[in-house]
């Protein structure tokens, strides 16, 4: 890419199409090489630090070209270029997941403390839902060391990924009761032995009501039968009595919230 960009330095014109094509091909072959490496067991993306799981799978060429132009401007000014343009980031994730699927290795979006944006029909969760069930599994990382005290992100990751993607596997998080348990049983690496997960069977942890995500989330349909929201579900009668409901933090709730051990381990076979 440097070779392609250099002739354009100091000019007002930039033909972005070949740059984009070159970048795509270069990225694809680089990821292919990584996937063929027997020591590589998964792909990981930190794109969620920027956009959560709101990763578009319908990326407009115009947006991609704009991203390239922005990189070109930064490159021209001699500053450090950052891969911080959504269209380009989305493309990188999409290419990586395609390569991961073809080599049967997991793609691992690192769930960060960015709130999940409202996912539309072009988002990655819908895209994953259309994939073959035997495609590469998605392993959402939400490890306890990064996110202690921020369980809401782990909570929101599970219902977004697991029901849609049979190969889903969540690490280090508390799985809501409505997520089918058998989907937690696969080993995300190539090891022939079972993997010990630090998942617990606890339902949703207390959510921070002060966050914009929580305020919106409590209003969304939660019950699978009548679409009652989390706030209304106690009175709808469709939830099994033994299924604990999500709890929301308040001074009163905080006193009643049991202490959870995020390092409790259960083997899944």
């Amino acid at each position, binding site marked *: 890419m440097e070779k392609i960009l250099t002739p354009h330095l100091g000019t007002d014109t930039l033909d972005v199409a070949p740059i984009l094509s070159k970048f795509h091909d270069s990225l694809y072959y680089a990821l292919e090489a990584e996937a063929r490496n027997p020591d590589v067991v*998964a792909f990981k993306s930190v794109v969620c630090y920027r956009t959560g799981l709101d990763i578009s799978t319908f990326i407009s060429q115009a947006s991609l070209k704009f991203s390239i132009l922005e990189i070109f401007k930064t490159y021209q000014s001699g500053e450090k270029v950052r891969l911080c343009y959504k269209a380009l980031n989305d493309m990188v994730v999409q290419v*990586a997941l395609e390569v991961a699927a073809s080599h049967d290795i997991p793609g691992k979006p690192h769930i960060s403390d960015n709130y999940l944006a409202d996912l539309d029909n072009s988002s990655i969760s819908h895209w994953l839902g259309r994939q073959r069930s035997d495609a590469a599994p998605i392993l959402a990382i939400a490890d306890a060391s990064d996110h202690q005290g921020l369980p809401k992100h782990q909570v929101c990751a599970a219902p977004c990924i697991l029901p849609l993607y049979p190969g889903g596997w969540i690490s280090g998080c508390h799985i809501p009761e409505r997520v089918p348990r058998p989907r937690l049983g696969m080993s995300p690496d190539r090891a022939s032995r079972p993997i010990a997960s630090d998942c617990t069977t606890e339902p949703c942890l207390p959510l921070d009501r002060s966050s914009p995500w929580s305020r919106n989330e409590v209003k969304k349909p939660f019950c699978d039968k009548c679409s009652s929201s989390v706030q209304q579900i106690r009175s709808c009668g469709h939830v099994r009595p033994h299924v604990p409901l999500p709890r929301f933090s308040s001074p009163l709730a905080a006193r009643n919230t049991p202490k959870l051990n995020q390092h409790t381990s259960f083997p899944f076979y």
Partner: protein
Amino acid sequence: MLDGEPSSVKYPDLHRMVFNLPAIDNHAHPILKEAHRDAFAFEGLVSEAQGVALTEDSVRTVANMRATKELSKLFGLDVNTTWEELKEHRNGLPYSELTGICFEHAKLQTLLLDDGLSGVEESAENYRTHDHFTTSPTKRIARIEVVAEVSIRGSPSRDESLISLEIPRR
């Protein structure tokens, strides 16, 4: 609790499984090279604070008190060891011995290592180095943004990176 006494626990089978089943650390990052062993304040173990808040204030937190108690046990020190005494003892340990102690008690079967953090090549060990501390060989998790970065730069080296998605870890 590092391992506890099996005879005193309520569910001995569960206790035995939890504390003896080899684990796979499925989201690890490489350990620092010996020359960089003091590159980060040790108090970062228990707090995400920075500056004085980390080095002076965090040592009075409950998390630090708990860490002091557990690490004292790990290093075979007296139960009344203070945080400063603990750090002094740790600093006096040869790096290989220190690393070995920590890995041994963690009972890790293997690591799935993300070595794509910025600065890793300069300050951290190669992923194969970790094989000495685990039962099975270490495996890598390829960070796709780093692969993309290399693709744009057109060089296999990660030095002088032009593009980075790196955001300081929380």
